[in-house]
């Protein structure tokens, strides 16, 4: 199948490492092109979220050096992240992609956002033209599996989201959230959900800051709050008891000295920073200040993970669905391997049929339309009946171990040659292999 996957996630790497390897949306196109430059990579996709950075590729021989991309793209000392990397190939890679899409690999198992993020990564790769047949097949299947898991199991239905953990923490700091001001810095699905959860507990008013003021206004309107300009952020921020940040900024937005200033201005009343951004928006140093509490994405998820035990049973069911799906996908891709042989065989026989028809037409002279039709039906019927059994055998053997022996035998017997063009496009092959060819 030649699928390869290399990455880090929240389990293997701390946020310090992940933020080094994070690839912002804007740079995704360049990164994908760079990835395609790695020898042997035929198709590529990059998933970069706050919890994971993963490079998925379909390669020529299943043995491309994806680390080469990391070295080239980040220019980092491999030592700093090497031990946090995981690499999966073939079925393992497929399984991993399925598990990620189904939110089984999330720390908060069942949280719904990851599927959207995978879809976005897929769309970006498509836009960059780095996804074609194989990854297309894999990802489309992954989305279907995710849907199946969601409908057939309860994973995600009682999702203890990051948001509710944030609310719980806010309540441990402030008691009642009634009238607690919220400042939303940057936009993002997760931060919006968190804000909504807080407001459901009575928090508010809310004010929104965004790099683009118009976006801030739209968000503010949605929450019934007010928008502030980004450069006014530091003047307004101390009014907020709870600050939710999720910007794509490459450097921290809130540094220790900001925290000190806020505390003075608000007479040391506590402040709660919910930092959902990766790389982080709030300097961890600030957590050392009395009265300032910072929870980054890892902290929140760890807190949420303790609630996750209840879902483990459903997760087990989901895992078995995925196992089943990996098997099916494997068979599907494998079956694609016999398709070139089948096509060659069909072409070969078809050529013979055409040649024989031409020859017989010369002898029979002018035929009526009905006679022509009868001849066509007769020969096609014979060809199809003869080919039916061998093609069926080939297809059913596709997923098995003897597939290569069988295709080789066919090639030898009929003196066939695989058509390279067919190799390129599994979707075309899938069509071709779905039945006998007809004109």
């Amino acid at each position, binding site marked *: 199948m030649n699928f390869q996957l290399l990455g880090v996630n929240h389990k293997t790497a701390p946020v310090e490492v992940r933020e080094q390897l994070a690839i912002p949306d804007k740079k995704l196109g360049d990164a994908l092109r760079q990835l395609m430059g790695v020898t042997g990579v035929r198709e590529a996709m990059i998933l970069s979220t706050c919890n994971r950075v993963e490079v998925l590729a379909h390669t020529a021989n299943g043995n491309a050096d994806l680390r080469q991309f990391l070295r080239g793209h980040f220019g980092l000392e491999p030592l700093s992240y090497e031990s946090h990397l995981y690499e999966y190939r073939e079925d393992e890679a497929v399984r991993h992609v399925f598990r990620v899409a189904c939110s089984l690999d999330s720390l908060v198992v069942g949280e719904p956002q990851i599927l959207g993020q995978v879809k976005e990564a897929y769309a970006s790769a498509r836009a960059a033209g780095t996804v074609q047949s194989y990854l297309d097949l894999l990802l489309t299947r992954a989305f279907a599996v995710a849907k199946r898991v969601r409908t057939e199991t309860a994973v995600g239905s009682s999702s203890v989201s990051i948001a509710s953990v944030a609310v719980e923490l806010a309540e441990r700091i*402030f*008691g009642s959230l009634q009238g607690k001001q919220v400042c939303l810095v940057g936009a993002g699905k997760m931060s919006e959900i968190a804000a909504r959860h807080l407001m459901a507990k009575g928090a508010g008013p809310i004010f929104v800051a965004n790099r683009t003021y118009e976006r801030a206004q739209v968000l503010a309107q949605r929450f019934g709050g007010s928008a502030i300009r980004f450069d006014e952020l530091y003047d307004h921020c101390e009014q907020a008891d709870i600050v939710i940040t999720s910007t794509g900024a490459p450097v921290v937005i809130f540094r220790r000295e900001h925290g000190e200033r806020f505390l003075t201005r*608000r*007479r040391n*009343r506590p402040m709660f920073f919910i930092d959902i951004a990766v790389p982080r928006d709030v300097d961890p140093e600030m957590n050392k200040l*009395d009265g300032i509490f910072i*929870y980054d994405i890892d902290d929140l998820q*760890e*807190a949420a993970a*303790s609630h996750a035990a209840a879902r483990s049973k459903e997760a087990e069911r989901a895992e078995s669905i995925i196992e089943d799906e990996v098997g099916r996908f494997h068979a599907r891709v494998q079956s694609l391997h016999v398709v070139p042989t089948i096509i060659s065989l069909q072409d070969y026989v078809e050529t013979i049929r055409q040649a024989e028809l031409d020859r017989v037409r010369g002898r029979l002279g002018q035929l009526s339309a009905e006679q022509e039709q009868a001849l066509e039906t007769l020969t096609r019927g014979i060809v199809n009946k003869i080919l039916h059994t061998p093609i069926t055998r080939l297809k059913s053997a596709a997923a098995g171990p003897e597939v290569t022996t069988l295709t080789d035998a066919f090639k030898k017997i009929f003196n066939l040659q695989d058509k390279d063009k067919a190799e390129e496009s599994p979707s075309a092959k899938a069509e071709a292999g779905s039945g006998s060819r007809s004109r």
Partner: protein
Amino acid sequence: MANIWLRVALSFYGIGLLYVLVALTRTREILNRIALHAAYLGMIFHFVAIVETVRQSGEISLASLSLAASVLGFLIMVVFLMVYLIYKTTSPGIVVFPVVFLLTFVGLSGMESFVLASSSARTGWLIAHITLIFAGYAALVISFSASLIYLIQEHVLKAKRSTGLLSRLPALQVTDDIGFRSLLIGLPFMTAGLVAGMVIAQARFGQVNFRDPKILLSLLTWAVYLILLYTRWSAGWRGRRAAFLAAGTFALAIVAWAANYFSAVHRLSP
């Protein structure tokens, strides 16, 4: 006459002292108005009393401690009203009223001597003194404990440990509120207790000896208590700093109590 005016002024300041207590259940407009009127009226009588005293003695001399205390109290009140006129806030009254009340009382104690004729009257004052002071101490202990709980909770939240018994501690701001409010309640009790103590001392010895270690330490404790309250109120000191200050105040209170053994005026046995 002067002492009568001063007594009236003291009663009005006493109303201010009550305001401090009531202010705990959130300031309401009516309360602010009452406190302000008490301050105005108190100041008028206070001013008259000072003028009268100066006129009687024929010279403006702050040599006597009582007059100095009285004038200081008056000036603090002037500043309080100026702050109100500029910033429209009566919240400094939390600290101002107890201070002015005590200063005015010291001023009054220089002018007249309290005579506690019957022994039952003496016992009554003594009980009042002990009860009030202990109420003040109790408030201090509560505030200190709240500070400790605050510290623990803060530590737990910072360390990001969310499981176990410690996660069931009350919310940080609730603890903080308890600590601050108990201090607020404690201050008027401390002040009144101190006043009662002075009345008893004066009734017994004719005048209050401010150089006595017991009285000095008591006043010092009271002053630090005031600082504790003030830093919390103005700078919002909480957590570690508040805990240290509360612990310091409590230690001082214990020293002041231990000073009974060195004090000439505070022997428990007659």
